[in-house]
């Protein structure tokens, strides 16, 4: 087929189309994250301090960082869906750096044996919860990531690997946040290790799975 014939056939196929809206992408992901959080609460229950309306400070800190990372990476995903040469997309890196403060704080506290940190890390480091944390967080992230990937398929991401990392990070952050509403641990060691593992695992899964689904 020569190019002129191709142009004629594409013009004949033309339908009015609405440009994709980043706010729709964000809204869909947030709505899915809310539904997933409600499902986790319905199945596993809400933390007792959240139920009582007096959350432990670490619950607020970890939740806030996970939401921040989820939002920043979701915004980056919506930007990736509408490509343009010369468009910077590195804002999410700052949110990732902020979220890395949790595992970093855990390592620092562990290494320096800060006595005053004792009340903050009082929650026991219970490895028995670890597999639950990883399982529930990842399963939650799969649902959120699937919805985000479906939305992203309408766009035109040009760096598929980065898009995969971003979807994995966003889904992992929101999925882990959903689990954190149930998670009984108050230990910074636990949060640093298992939350970090959960988000990291989701990011790696996103890196390897998502590019195949969004290739165009």
């Amino acid at each position, binding site marked *: *087929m020569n*190019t002129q014939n*191709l*142009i*004629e056939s*594409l*013009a*004949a*196929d*033309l*339908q*009015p*189309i*609405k*440009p*994709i809206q980043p706010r729709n992408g964000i809204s869909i992901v947030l709505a899915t994250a809310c539904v997933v959080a409600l499902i986790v609460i319905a199945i596993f229950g809400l933390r007792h301090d959240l139920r009582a309306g007096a959350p432990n400070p670490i619950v607020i800190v970890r939740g806030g960082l996970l939401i921040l990372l989820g939002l920043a990476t979701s915004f980056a995903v919506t930007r990736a*869906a*509408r*490509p*343009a*040469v*010369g*468009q910077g997309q590195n804002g999410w890196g700052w949110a990732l750096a902020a979220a890395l403060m949790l595992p970093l704080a855990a390592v620092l506290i562990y290494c320096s044996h800060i006595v005053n940190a004792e009340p903050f890390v009082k929650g026991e480091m219970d490895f028995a919860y670890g597999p639950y944390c990883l399982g529930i967080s990842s399963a939650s992230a799969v649902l959120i990531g699937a919805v985000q990937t479906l939305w992203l398929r*309408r*766009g*035109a991401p*040009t*760096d598929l690997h980065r898009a995969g990392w971003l979807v994995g990070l966003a889904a992992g952050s929101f999925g882990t946040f959903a689990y954190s509403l149930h998670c009984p641990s108050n230990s910074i060691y636990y949060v640093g290790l298992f939350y970090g593992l959960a988000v990291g695992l989701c990011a790696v899964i996103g890196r390897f799975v998502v590019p195949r689904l969004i290739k*165009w």
Partner: protein
Amino acid sequence: MNVSEAHLHQLMTRSLAGDAAAYRLFLSGCQMWLTRFYARRMAPSQIDDLVQETLISVHNKRASYDPARPFLPWLAAIARYRWIDQLRKTGRAKEVELDDTLGVDSEEDVIAAKLSLDCLLDQIKPEQASVIRLVKIGGLSIAEAAAKSGQSEPLVKVNIHRGLKRMAALVESE
């Protein structure tokens, strides 16, 4: 045919609303712009196919264009994606010997491509560039390249892999 930013932007905006006449003009303008874009990057025989593939991508992905933003950076991003995809396909394709009866056209593009390649090879580590030259350009086997470069066979493979990866990253960041 006017292929300025303002003209293409206006045609694209009308095309999104379903104006087929504007869309024909728009695609013709894109065709001209893309032909120029690829002329500096591809062998002449591959340009038409790549322009057509890119026009199909422009058609399929037109919803990803935001009319509030400039048009050409979007088109350039789509064109670059298709170009890199084509380079990857070419890299994976089995090489066949050229028929001696094939005619020879101007060598200008071949020289330009070689200059680009040399430029990329200059930007990676010398030990990677040397084995890429020996195996991928010179056609030597891994064993022959290992003997000639003084590197072990596994190291030759690693250096080729890392060198090509680095070159692909350089192309993508261009």
